[in-house]
């Protein structure tokens, strides 16, 4: 865990008068599962949007395996191996579950549009290979029976998992998941926790923005706590659970020593 997958240095962003992200710095070690927690409006998703090129920061830097991500477009960020999901499951409507997962492989699809149109053997072989991988991933998260169902007809939990699987199809080096457990019931959350561990064990670094404490505390190697745009604490789940500032941020001002 020596090399940093993602290094965020003094990232700063103002929206009008709102200081959404205030000098945020943290490091995601290679191969780790980092959780970013914090109350609503703490700036968690904004950090994601800054890192993935949707917004431009006012100052600061974000480095992905040593390379600066600033001034890169979302497409370039994705092409470098950093793939994100969205807070509201942004699966593609009008496509089946399988097509959605296959769409995740866009960056790795080698056959040209022209060779696809001519039904060339190479393009068809590639398509078949990708389809097998996509089917395996659907099987893995228990969505195999929804293969040919319109993705929008999946239950919320299924859509969330589908989005994670679609991101995996892109073979990321670092996966940013924005509230993957939102809208999931307890059983689905437990399944998600196992999936997250499996992703990390497969060598993919993961950053999760999450509200669900039991999920975070169960799977994270490292927890970063944001409040009102600033990092208020970071450390192992155990350290965070005992941190006064975190308790203050979450349940309001606690009496000293009363926790």
């Amino acid at each position, binding site marked *: 865990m020596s090399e940093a997958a993602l290094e965020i240095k003094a990232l700063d962003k103002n929206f009008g008068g709102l200081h959404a992200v205030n000098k945020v710095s943290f490091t995601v070690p290679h191969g780790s599962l980092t959780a970013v927690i914090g109350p609503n409006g703490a700036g968690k998703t904004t950090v994601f949007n800054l890192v993935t090129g949707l917004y431009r920061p006012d100052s600061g830097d974000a480095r992905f395996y040593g390379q600066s991500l600033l001034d890169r477009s979302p497409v370039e960020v994705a092409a470098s191996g950093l793939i994100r999901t969205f807070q509201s499951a942004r699966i593609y409507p009008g496509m089946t579950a399988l097509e959605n997962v296959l769409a995740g492989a866009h960056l790795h699809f080698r*056959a040209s*549009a022209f060779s696809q*149109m001519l039904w060339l053997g190479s393009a068809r072989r590639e398509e078949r290979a990708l389809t097998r991988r996509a089917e395996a991933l659907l099987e893995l998260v228990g969505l195999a029976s929804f293969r040919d169902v319109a993705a929008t007809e999946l239950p919320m939990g299924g859509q969330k998992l589908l989005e994670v699987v679609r991101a995996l199809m892109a073979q990321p080096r670092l996966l940013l998941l924005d509230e993957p457990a939102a809208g999931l019931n307890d059983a689905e959350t437990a399944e998600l926790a196992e999936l997250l561990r499996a992703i990390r064990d497969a060598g993919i670094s993961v950053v999760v923005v999450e509200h669900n404490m039991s999920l975070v505390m169960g799977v994270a190697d490292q927890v970063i706590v944001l409040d009102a745009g600033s990092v208020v604490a970071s450390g192992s789940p155990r350290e965070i659970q005992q941190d006064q500032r975190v308790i203050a941020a979450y349940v309001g001002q606690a009496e000293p020593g009363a926790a």
Partner: protein
Amino acid sequence: MIQAIQIVIGGVLQGAVFALLALGFSLVYRVTGVINLAQGGFCVFGALLMYTLQVSWGLPIPLALAGALAGTALGGVILGYTTFGPALTRLSVSSILVMTAGLLTLIQGVLLIGWSSQPYALPPISGEAPIAIFGVRIPTQGFWIVAAAVVIILGLWFLLARTRLGLALRACAENRLAARLMGIDVPRMTLFSFTLAAVIAGLGGIAVAPITSLEFDTGGFFTNFGFISVAVGGLGAFAGSVFGGLVLGVSEQLAAGYVSSLFANGLALALLLVMLLWRPNGLFTAGPARRQDVRDEQRIHRAIVRLEGRGGAIFAVLAAVFILVLPFILPGAGILNSLVITGILFIAVLGLDVLMGYAGQVSLGHAGFMAIGGYTAAILATTYHWPPLAGVAAGIVLSLVCAFALSLVTTRLRGHFLALATLAFGLMIDSLTVGLTDVTGGPSGLVGIPSFSVGPYVFGSSMEMYYLVAVLIFVLVAMLHGGLRSGFGRALKAVRTDQTAAAALGVNVPRYKLAAVCLSAALASLSGSLYAFYFHFLSPEMVGAPRSFEMIAMLVAGGEATLVGPLLGVALLTLIPTVFQPFALYKTFAEGLLLVLCFLWLPEGMFGSAAVWLARITMRRKVDGRARTVVP
């Protein structure tokens, strides 16, 4: 000098009508967030009603005016209640835009049936003799036009600023949901604004009818120029709408006066494209900005139409066999002729399907590419004696160049602005084909185009053309099917549904939009060339702006994003008028009706709905259950 003043006055009068239309656009846009392209139709509807009441029935002017406005209002209420209102709740913004284009066609169809295709002009209210002021001659009707515009503008201002009803309308404009929470009947406000805009347009039409001649399809002209006015002035900005109308009217008249009336439209459109590049939101900004992503929203969910695997293969073989034997089981040669036209148009609609159905990019000017392909091939073949195949290739190259140039403008535009830019493109090509008389033969068309030939082989008969087009379609459908069911198609669909999520997965959104535009432009160009070679004749109206709307109607009726489905739509709208000659008069009406009905009640189109129904039957046993456990 006097001539210049004369021209400017003419422009102001013209512009006053554009301003009224633009006000209607802004009113509906502010209250509902969508653009109603049917506006110009109401303009002509009001004027023709007035003609019937005043001239044919001989009613006194005030009575005729009241009757015409009441009739227009009734038309507005009926269309608003049955189509526009329901569409707002279930269609995406750009689909509603296209549906209102269908409404415009529908109104034109009604006018064609009711008043046939001759031009009408109302008698001027206060006589023919113009007034001369310092040598400048002003038609007295001009005062009535300006008076009508001023009364409407002041009335609208009073309504919005000073009345409770206006307050409710403004509340809808600010935030529809909040307005509903406050107990405002938003659907009724929508209907009211739609109808009020129709009446304003009708009054504009009545005022301008004495100094211009109106036909059933003049509404398209009014819609286009009202739309351009509002885009120049600022969508939703009332002062901007009036200003935009006047600017457009004056600049158009100046262009007509000093350059050529045939280029007047082209120059107005060039003005618009410059505006779109320079200030896409218009000169005046209005209210809160609305999200205008092209179909990039939740209401676009369509059922997924697929005939995959063995079923699809069987269907394809059966369809191919049917197409190949069809000429031998036909009753008459007239139908074969229509089938060739069907096939040629289908090639263009195939491209439109890639662009609109798969990539989700609205194009209201697609016939422009048909014109480029048709005229390029035809001119090269007649004047320069190029072989047809080389002419077709040259047309495609030129279309690709134009598509690329258009893309430079449109990749940055979304929703209404994209639709507007493509509309402007189509109209610009349209006005060039009319205006470049020396090259294109102008409005009377280009004659003496040879038959299509490859080397020494000439496709002279309908039968030969039929098989040429059929084979071409087989090849194109097979190629497009190969690409669209694979990575290319998935990337296009990702762009259609969610551009942000697509980019986050590495899809280069502008590049795929460009690919779709170029592909569709090339196919439209090919279709246009074949069209010219088949008819041995090409005139602007064969590939003009109404053709663009007709192609959209064909696409939507057949089924967007189904590739082969639109063939049904093309066949329906091409064959029915041929097979049932008496129905030719009803073609425009049927086109509009079909488009509106399909948008509202058959969103997957005829082919799509049939395929979904079939798939549901066969899939029922395959799909069961729910998500099971995760991870071994």
